[in-house]
Structure formats: structure tokens, C-alpha cells
């Protein structure tokens, strides 16, 4: 397990290294002065610029400049936004938790719905229910997310008025900010309207999370179905049946865990996809997250924001990836121990 952890950590360090190299080089690749791009000081006078050049080590070699840049990034000095002139660290630390909340809830919905439905499809292989589930999964995967988002608003917010169409919480509630993740902040606050705020925030969250979850859920359906079919063919399932266990027992105690192992491997990959969908959905639902802000920054050519936004978002995706790897190791004894010949 220690070796496994060290290997993941190693991978993490290398990925962060490459990401920072990319983010650092973007400052030179974007149009304009590299120093302005990296610091975000658009309207600085000569004196301030000279000071900045000093602090970013512009007189030194490119390697030293990179080291200084990484040092600044890790100490939280992300520069300022070229448009709003606000420190990017503050902007990101207010926006990122909303995206984390939305995407993790969406991932949860996708897994909780998708995996059991996929298992059912595999168990009912080649029957009508299997075909129906597969066709629905195919349709769900094919429809574009912006259309689904608009249709969901049209149906659930405007026609049925079940869920609100925009925002994270109704402005009447004042919630003290602690961790930034709204649902947790509400639970920790000592407001008199705690539970009303909680239900309001949940109803704001459900619709965008469900829209984001649609495509990943259909992928999980198909992954779970393939994995389960594969597991049900294996000799140990046949042996378990020969033991005299009923089919339900075989599925419950042997098949599910082995099928889950195959699915968990893909969570990390699917999460990157999910974040892309979440960025578009944040725009549609005016969700105050980092995805919407990043898309806006791209429109406004806010190069500093783009650099840092990419770095933060991809680090977040990668952390989830690593966590899913640990989940995989927890489920699979073969991944944990030392392997012969590797």
C-alpha cells in the first residue's frame, strides 16, 4: 500500500510539474507582454513594472523565472485579473467551491443512478429491459448538454415551477461563509432559517446537477453493463453457482464488487468529461462557479485568469482522479499488494 501511495504521489508531482510548465509558457504564448500576462497588471506605470520584473526575476534565466513563478503559485500569489483588477486567489477561492460542490453532486448522481441501472441491464441481458435501458442510454449520451439544460429550465422551472432556474441560493438567505461549499456552510451556520436555506439551496442544486449528470450517467450505465456481463462470464461466478448459492447471492456477494472494480477505474477519466459539461451548464444556470468565470475570462481575453483557471481546474480534476485510484486500490486486493515482475 505504501508503494502504491508513493507511486500515485510521484504521478501527482509530475503532473503538477507539467501543468505549471504549460501555465508558465502560456504567458509567453499569449499575445502581449509576458510580464503583463503573468501578473495581470495592465495599467501599471514604469516604476511598478520595473518592480514586477524584479519580483518575477525577468533579468534571470528562463529556468529561474519558472522556479520563481512556481514559488509564487504555491504561496498563493496568482496575480490579478486583467479585467477586474481583483487578486485571482480571492476570486478563485470564492468560485472554486461552488464548482466542486456542483460537480461532485453531479458525479454522485451519475454513479448512484448509472451503475445500478447498468447492472440491471446486464442481469437482464438480451431481454426487453436491457434493450430499453441501452437505447435510453444511447439517447441520453447523444443529446447536447446546452439543449438539455434549456429544456430542463423550460420544463421544470417555467412550466412546472418545481425548481428555480438560476443561481445557487435565493438572495434572501444570508449564510456566513466558512468553507465555501454552500450546503456545508448552511449546516454549520446558526441562522434561524437554516433548514429553509438548506432546502432552497438543494432545490437550486438539483436541476443543474441532474443536467450535468445525464451524459456521465449514461456512460456509467454502459460501463457497468459491460463490466457486469464480463464478470458473469468468469469461472469464479460459475464456481460460486456450483457451490449452490442462488443467483441473487452470487451477484450480491461476488459479482458486484468485481464489476465495481472495473468501473471505478473509469471514474477519473469520466470526471474530466463531467467538468467540461459542468462549465457549460454553469453558464446556462448562472451558477457562480469557476467554469462560468473561466468561459467569461476567455471571452474577455483575461490571459492571467485563463492561465490560473486552467491550472486550478486541472489540478482539481487530477486530485479526483487520484482519489478514485485509491478507491480502486481499496476495492481491489490485486492492485494493493506488490506484484511479481512489475
Amino acid at each position, binding site marked *: 500500500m505504501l508503494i502504491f501511495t508513493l507511486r500515485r504521489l510521484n504521478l501527482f508531482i509530475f503532473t503538477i510539474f507539467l501543468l505549471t510548465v504549460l501555465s508558465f509558457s502560456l504567458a509567453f504564448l499569449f499575445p502581449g507582454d509576458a510580464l503583463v500576462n503573468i501578473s495581470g497588471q495592465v495599467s501599471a506605470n514604469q516604476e511598478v513594472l520595473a518592480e514586477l520584473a524584479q519580483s518575477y526575476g525577468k533579468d534571470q534565466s528562463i529556468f529561474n523565472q519558472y522556479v520563481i513563478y512556481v514559488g509564487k503559485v504555491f504561496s498563493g500569489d496568482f496575480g490579478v485579473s486583467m479585467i477586474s483588477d481583483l487578486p485571482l486567489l480571492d476570486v478563485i477561492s470564492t468560485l472554486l467551491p461552488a464548482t466542486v460542490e456542483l460537480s461532485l453532486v453531479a458525479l454522485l448522481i451519475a454513479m448512484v443512478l448509472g451503475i445500478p441501472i447498468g447492472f440491471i441491464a446486464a442481469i437482464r441481458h438480451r431481454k426487453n429491459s436491457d434493450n430499453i435501458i441501452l437505447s435510453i442510454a444511447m439517447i441520453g449520451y447523444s443529446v447536447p448538454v446546452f439543449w438539455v439544460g434549456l429544456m430542463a429550465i423550460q420544463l421544470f422551472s417555467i412550466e412546472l415551477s418545481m425548481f428555480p432556474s438560476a443561481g445557487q441560493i435565493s438572495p434572501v438567505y444570508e449564510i456566513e461563509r466558512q468553507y465555501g461549499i454552500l450546503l456545508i456552510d448552511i449546516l454549520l451556520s446558526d441562522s434561524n432559517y437554516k433548514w429553509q436555506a438548506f432546502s432552497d439551496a438543494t432545490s437550486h442544486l438539483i436541476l443543474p446537477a441532474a443536467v450535468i449528470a445525464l451524459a456521465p450517467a449514461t456512460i456509467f450505465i454502459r460501463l457497468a453493463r459491460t463490466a457486469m456481463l464480463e464478470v458473469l462470464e*468468469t*469461472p*469464479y461466478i*460459475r*464456481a*460460486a*453457482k*456450483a*457451490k*449452490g*448459492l442462488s443467483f441473487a447471492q452470487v451477484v450480491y*456477494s*461476488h459479482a458486484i*464488487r*468485481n464489476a465495481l*472494480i472495473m468501473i471505478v477505474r473509469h471514474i477519473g477519466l469520466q470526471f474530466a468529461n463531467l467538468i467540461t459539461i459542468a462549465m457549460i451548464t454553469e453558464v446556462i444556470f448562472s451558477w457562480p462557479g469557476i467554469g462560468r468565470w473561466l468561459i467569461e475570462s476567455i471571452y474577455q481575453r483575461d490571459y492571467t485568469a485563463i492561465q490560473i483557471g486552467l491550472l486550478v481546474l486541472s489540478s482539481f480534476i487530477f486530485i479526483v482522479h487520484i482519489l478514485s485510484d485509491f478507491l480502486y486500490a481499496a*476495492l*481491489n*486486493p*490485486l492492485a494493493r*499488494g506488490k506484484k511479481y515482475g512489475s
Partner: protein
Amino acid sequence: MNLFDIRNLSISLKSNDTDILAVDRVSLAMKEGEVRGLVGESGSGKSLLAQAIMGVLDPKWSVTADRFHWRGQDLMNLSPHERKAIIAKDVAMIFQEPMLSLDPTTTIGEQVEEAIDPASLEGNFWQRRKARKSEAIRLLHKVGIKHHEICTSSYPHELTEAICQRVMIAIALAKSPILLIADEPTAAMESRNQGQIFRLLASLNQLKSMSILLISHDLENVTHWTNTITVMYSGQFVEAGTTKQIFKSPLHPYTRALVDSSPAANIELPPKSRLKALPGSIPILQHLPIGCRLGPRCPKAQRKCVTAPKAKNYHGHVVSCHFNMKESGKV
């Protein structure tokens, strides 16, 4: 008394347009306490036959039979569910490749415990867990695993093939079966471990009077351990008799060839000369010959062989050939 008696069991695979008859009207009967070998080349349908008896075949195969008696009880009249319940209670099976037959993500201890029938445990529900544990340890000791602490907390990939096969046998013994079907239990195992497994099976047969159906592709290897042998070829019944009959006076040309092809039979051959063997290889399922499926390879084949021969019984030595050694007066 017959333990089980199967007549004309056929297994077919529904393919796109044609029906492939993988096992063609095979009969098999066993007495209580007997060790019977079921011998044939790979692809002769012996594993299919065993899985059909256990009822663990894939649904894509369809199985038909004229008779299936289990200890005097006719199983053909029962629903598949009832049949499976009876079979699962009294018959256990061990497979080739034991490591693949154990769930890779569950510890050995849990897998052995799972096989123990809850009805056999005594005590109240809080004592059950402990009783189950000690029963599992007892089973592991029975198959010759001394260090049960290491074994129960291990996963299958951490143990050797031979230990895994012992665990499989322990799992099979959990319900104290009357019949154990061993489907090539020692395939891909070193000869030393092979001997250990066979000795374990033999002692179980003698001490518990457990009947064993030993499936193997190696005629010579099973002769030490079996009382009777049934030979199959390409899904058809070839010959059945006591081990001595099969080995000393084989009646079917195929059995003759099998016995002649073993290294022991060829010991007097001069060096660097060819071993005796039938020409050709076993036909694939898509291109099965009509009549006797040995036809194209058989040294004695004649025109009559395009119709499948009926099994003839010579004092318990059953053979299915138009021109067997008895007919042609060689024995």
C-alpha cells in the same frame, strides 16, 4: 445401487442457422462410492457434460436427455429449480484453473465460510459466526492446509495453484457431497502437486465413501486412481468399463489408439522412431462428421460407419463401434 444414471444426454448450441450437437446422446452411470474417470481429448465435450449435470451451463446451450435418475429419483419430472436444489445439495464440483475459480476480491476464509450450509450450524445467532469460522478452519485442515491463519486471510492470487485447488476441494466438502465432479483438477500443475491432489481425492473416496467423477484428458494419469473409466470422443460415447478392461483389452479402435499412444506403451520403441498415434486431430464443432465421428481418423472405418453405432454391452464392458475388437474376434 446406481448413484446416478443418465441416458442419451445431448447438448446442442443454437448457432445462427444450424444446431451444433456438441454432445451426442451420451450415457453415463455411476455406482455409489465409485471413482469413475471420464477421459477424452480436449473438445470432446467432457466438461460440458459435467457442467450439464451440475446445471451451471450457459443458457445458450440446450440440454436434452432421455433419463436422468439420481439415487433412484427421476429428476426429469422436476422443474429446473427443484432439480438444481437436489443437485446442489449432493453434488459438488471442482474446476480446472482453481485460481480463476475463486473470487479474486474476497478472502479465502470468507469464500469457504460462504459455502457452509447455515442449517448445519448449531447455537444461537451470536454463536453462529464463531461456529462458521471454526467449521471453515476444520475444512481447511481436512484438505491438508495446516496454516489456516495465513490461508484464510489471503486472497487467491497470493496462494499457489495447488493450495487454491485444496481450497476448492474444501469448499466442495463443505456440504459433504455424495458425488464430487473433478473437472481436470490438476491441469497446469506440477506433477508433485498433482500427486498430492489425487491422493487427497482418493483418501476422501475411501474415508467418506464419496463418489468421484474424475475428468481428464490423460488416460494414463487417471488409471491409478479410478475403478471405472468412460471414454468420449468429439461429444460421442466411445467405451466404458473397469479400468482394467479399458487398459488391458480396449475394444474400440479409439481407446486402443489412446492406450497405444501413451509413453508407457511405447517404451520398447527404438529411439527416434515415431510414436503410435491416430492421424489427424479432433474435428471442430462446425465440421462434425456424420455417423461415428471418429470415422475420418479411424483405421477400421468402413461404409457402415456413416451411421452412428449402437452401444453394445459385453459383461459390463460397453463399447460403441460397428467393428470393435470383440466383433472382429481379436480378443
